[in-house]
């Protein structure tokens, strides 16, 4: 397989003060962000956070109201033609032609970029070979995981140096999601710079660095997933007990030193109001255990736990456990 490095060094993405409003309503406000060459960068946030607006400006299909952005030093407004040649883009909605076959879709995208499938075959083979047995099937008849692989093959057909992926795993099952991230790892090994948007908080762990985004603004500074998770700033413990979850949540939310209590799989994560420290974590654990005993939950498990990116996201956006419910 040919690597990007044979052609040119991987590119970087720079975003300086980018903003966009729709009919006077701000969709994105003053975004600053840099993706380093060869990095796999995650933009993590729910639907409506502004992820697509940001990515659409980067891929030169939407003009910014404020600020600038560049791909490998090329301005996304002034140099849009040159930018398009080095970018691969997978939009959020299924972007292929449903009436064309798998092979026809790939050939179409190759021809748009002045190349051919034969010429690029080695480059896309690691991904395309997985759907090649279904080459003559109409794209509309593919399963979710296969559509995703075809869309990625089409985005890669001109050997882009930067890959922009908008929610590539939304609506896709857990197995196909894992496989998709494995493919992104392989592309990273080839030196491709990737910026991927996702609403799945657990996918943050697969990225080199991440930025959290909500209501058109970044929540805090971009950093590694581990550093973002560690920056919760409050003590965090987890609780597990048999019985009614709503009743347990309401007991936990009633403890004076508790900032929020949220279900996390089979556990409930409880964030304290104090600043994070070992002592604060011990105090929170003792107080919560005592309150649970008083309320008749003496069998409950209460233990310290390392924060996840999702804990941090919820803490920064506010929510039901903090009394800021919509």
């Amino acid at each position, binding site marked *: 397989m040919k690597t990007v490095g044979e052609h040119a060094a991987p590119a970087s993405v720079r975003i300086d003060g980018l903003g966009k409003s729709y009919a006077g309503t701000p969709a994105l406000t003053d975004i600053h962000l840099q993706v380093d060459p060869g990095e796999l960068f995650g933009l993590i946030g729910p*639907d409506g956070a502004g992820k697509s607006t940001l990515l659409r400006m980067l891929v030169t299909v939407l003009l910014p109201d404020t600020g600038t952005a560049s791909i490998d030093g090329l301005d996304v407004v002034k140099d849009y033609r040159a930018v398009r040649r080095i970018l691969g883009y997978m939009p959020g909605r299924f972007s292929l032609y449903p009436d064309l076959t798998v092979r026809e879709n790939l050939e179409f995208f190759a021809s748009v970029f002045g190349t051919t499938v034969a010429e690029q075959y080695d480059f896309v083979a690691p991904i395309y070979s997985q759907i090649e047995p279904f080459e003559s099937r109409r794209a509309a008849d593919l*399963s979710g995981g296969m559509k995703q692989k075809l869309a990625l093959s089409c985005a890669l057909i001109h050997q882009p140096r930067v890959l922009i992926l908008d929610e590539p795993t*939304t609506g896709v*099952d*857990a197995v*196909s999601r894992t496989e998709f991230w494995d493919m992104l790892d392989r592309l990273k090994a080839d030196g491709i710079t990737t910026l991927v948007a996702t609403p799945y908080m657990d996918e943050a762990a697969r990225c080199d660095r991440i930025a959290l985004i909500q209501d058109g603004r970044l929540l805090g500074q971009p950093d590694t997933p581990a550093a973002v998770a560690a920056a919760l700033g409050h003590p965090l413990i987890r609780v597990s007990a048999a019985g009614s979850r*709503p009743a347990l949540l309401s007991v936990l939310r009633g403890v004076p030193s508790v900032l929020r209590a949220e279900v996390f799989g089979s556990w409930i994560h409880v964030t304290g109001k104090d600043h994070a420290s070992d002592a604060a974590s011990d105090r929170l654990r003792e107080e919560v255990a005592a309150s649970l005993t008083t309320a008749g939950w003496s069998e409950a498990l209460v233990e310290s736990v390392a924060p996840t990116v999702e804990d941090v996201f919820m803490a920064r956006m506010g929510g039901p456990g903090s009394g800021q419910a919509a």
Partner: protein
Amino acid sequence: MTRDTQHITSDTVPVDESAGPDAVVSARELTRTFGDFTAVDRISFDVGKGEVFGFLGANGAGKTTAIRMLTGLLSPSSGSAIVAGHDVATSPNLIKQQIGYMSQRFALYDDLTVKENVRFYGGVYGLRGSELKDRRHAMLRKLGFEHLEGERVGGLPLGWKQKLAFSVALLHQPSVVFLDEPTGGVDPVTRRQFWELIYEAAGQGTTVFVTTHYMDEAEYCDRVSIMVDGIIKALDTPGRLKTDFGVDSMNDVFLQLARGGKRS
């Protein structure tokens, strides 16, 4: 509410009658073929009153086909299912009146206001006049959405829309509500608020039949079934599934089962 159920890990046809005479959804060898392709292959299970039942599976495993049969939109090729007291094969229209339904793709009309949507759906489900008005007010008060009555639904944040759509699906007080990926793309806080609404409905006796790709949400269900290639490969409480598969999370249970699938 949790019940003792048999746990299925082999390819045998599971018959789970644990919900007993209380069952609100009851499938027996339910099957649907399209030409020579068997989308749903003899699935059998019961879902009890007030139970939160997670219906999981990989893309293409047959979930959507099964749900379309259970909601009266598609007739079975063989086998049977009783939903809210009616047979899906013979009385599909009675079922449509007695269930609630929402999905990420089909929820409310973006071009109508909140009030218009509630009146439209209430009307479809046979609610009229002061009864409809009272329920609308009660529902919006509970959600804290009274000030949004005149707003177009299209302008609301996704999470609000989904909470509203769920409440609208419950407006006619159905005995069972089908939720097809109701929280896809919703922020983590609103996603949890949505599940608190689910618990509340279940606590009042509504059966909740829900699909999701978020494996942490599988943990919130009373029982979970996992479909692979048209059959139910496992069905039990999240706790027992994790014990039986020797793993810590439903994500790992799912990956173990679904990795064997041929259709994704």
